[in-house]
């Protein structure tokens, strides 16, 4: 039994890894207008692989095999088009001719193509929810089903989102082969935001399978790492974002138990934290420091540092001012509530309750969950009351489960 894992292990793995790269590489030659053509060729290549490998066994270098087949398919395709143009049309206009099918393949060109693709997909004009779907499909090789699963959305909804985003992508006329300084500066913010959301979707998502969530995180890290590999995109913000992802990833194993329920920070088994990822986080946090800039990513990475460092004696005293700064820089209810949690750790629950009530996010699950937590031990009646509202407001079964558990501790 040598071959059965072609279908279950090797192909899906290679598909994830190479489909997006292959599409990016082909798009670089055809232009984004022909993205579907590039995807067809990449898809055909994998189909051919699944047939051929099942009969003849896995080649010594599967990746090289795939690229050779893709290259030949591209040549055939272009030859067919050119035959058609010559025979059917009377003349071929110069500017409509497709580029020569001389596709160079090396790891540097593949990386450059992918980098360009990230910037193409992160068009500021595409709505952010569509952008993440598009990123998952085009950059990470996720299927519509997998995306729908990750977002707990209907396949049709995701399809529509993707169609709209792809329309924008084709019309955008983005030049893939020459990523200009200007497009880098104008789009890097959006790129970072997309990667940040992609990671969070995997890390905090209350839906989807654990496996898909872990892959989302890994893909976000892979793409961010790609940005650090190029001088023009290796900014301090990119380093800070990568530091944040490393710190968070170090706790991935510890924050879910065997049955997929969230393990609260204080109950986590620290032995399960991945020290090598913490070290990488430290490295990127230091690399991302230029002595001045403190972006949202810098602040969030700093907070994550205090959550992972073993010498966290005065951790909440360090975290509170960081949340205060973050709140001033990028206000959101979640940040305000997280800050209130840190405030409670520093100044005690009664003082924090006053702070939280002032915020008044009465239709927010986390607002009531936090009040439930803060009232516990002080006024258990009120604690249970707030937990109950939180459970009512929550839309996620996993979250409701966690809240029920917490409420159970009060009574």
């Amino acid at each position, binding site marked *: 039994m040598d071959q059965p894992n072609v279908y279950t292990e090797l192909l899906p793995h290679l598909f994830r890894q190479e489909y997006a790269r292959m599409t990016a590489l082909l798009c670089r030659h055809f232009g984004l207008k022909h993205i579907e053509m590039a995807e067809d060729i990449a898809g055909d290549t994998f189909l051919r692989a699944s047939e051929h490998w099942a009969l003849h066994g896995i080649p010594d270098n599967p990746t090289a095999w795939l690229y050779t087949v893709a290259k030949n398919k591209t040549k055939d395709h272009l030859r067919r088009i050119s035959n058609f143009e010559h025979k059917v049309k009377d003349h071929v206009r110069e500017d409509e001719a497709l580029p020569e099918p001389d596709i160079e393949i090396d790891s540097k060109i593949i990386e450059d193509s992918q980098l360009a693709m990230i910037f193409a997909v992160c068009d500021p004009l595409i709505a952010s929810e569509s952008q993440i779907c598009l990123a998952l499909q085009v950059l990470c090789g996720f299927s519509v089903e997998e995306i729908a699963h990750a977002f707990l959305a209907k396949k049709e909804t995701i399809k529509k989102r993707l169609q709209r985003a792809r329309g924008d992508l084709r019309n955008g006329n983005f030049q893939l082969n020459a990523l200009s300084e200007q497009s880098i500066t104008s789009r890097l913010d959006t790129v970072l935001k997309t990667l940040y959301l992609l990671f969070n979707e995997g890390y905090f998502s209350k839906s989807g399978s654990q496996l898909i969530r872990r892959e989302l995180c890994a893909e976000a890290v892979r793409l961010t790492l790609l940005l650090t590999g190029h001088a023009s995109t290796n900014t301090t913000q990119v380093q800070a974002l990568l530091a944040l992802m490393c710190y968070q990833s170090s706790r991935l194993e510890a924050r879910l138990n065997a049955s997929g329920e969230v393990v609260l920070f204080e109950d986590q088994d620290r032995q399960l934290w991945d*020290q090598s990822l913490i*070290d990488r*986080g*430290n*490295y990127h*946090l*230091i690399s*991302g*420091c230029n*002595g001045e800039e*403190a972006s949202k990513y810098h602040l969030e*990475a*700093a*907070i994550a*540092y*205090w959550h992972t*460092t*073993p*010498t966290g004696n005065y951790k909440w005293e*360090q975290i509170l001012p*960081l949340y205060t*700064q973050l709140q001033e820089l990028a206000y959101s209810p979640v940040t305000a509530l997280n800050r209130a949690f840190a405030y409670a750790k520093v100044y005690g629950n009664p003082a924090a309750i006053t702070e939280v009530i002032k915020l008044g996010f009465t239709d927010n699950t986390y607002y009531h969950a936090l009040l439930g937590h803060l009232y516990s031990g002080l006024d258990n009646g009120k604690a249970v009351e707030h937990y109950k509202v939180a459970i009512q407001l929550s839309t996620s079964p996993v979250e409701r489960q966690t809240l029920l558990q917490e409420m159970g501790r009060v009574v």
Partner: protein
Amino acid sequence: MKEFALIFRLNDVADFKPSPEQMQERMNWLAGIVAQNKLADKGNTLLPTPGSARTVKPGNVVTDGPFTEIKEFIVGFVVVRTADIDEAVALAKENPIFRIGGSIEVREVLKQA
């Protein structure tokens, strides 16, 4: 806010090349300063090894390294930004260099107007 250079010194060249654990502790210490928004300059490591260190003196005298004259030699520096020197000293105290017999000199940086 003021800026202070933390200047690291060691006694023994053999201690210069850190073990992975020492490196880890050092990075964790520095990351902690970044995570407090207190690192003004990452500074540099200064190689103390023969061939990488010379001292130039009046009268066209050049000697190898600073090793022969002073017991301790400088291996690097960072610059921190704190309210006062006590806070800078508190940061320095957490550094793992003391475990291998090193020392840290804390010096305020004169800010050019």
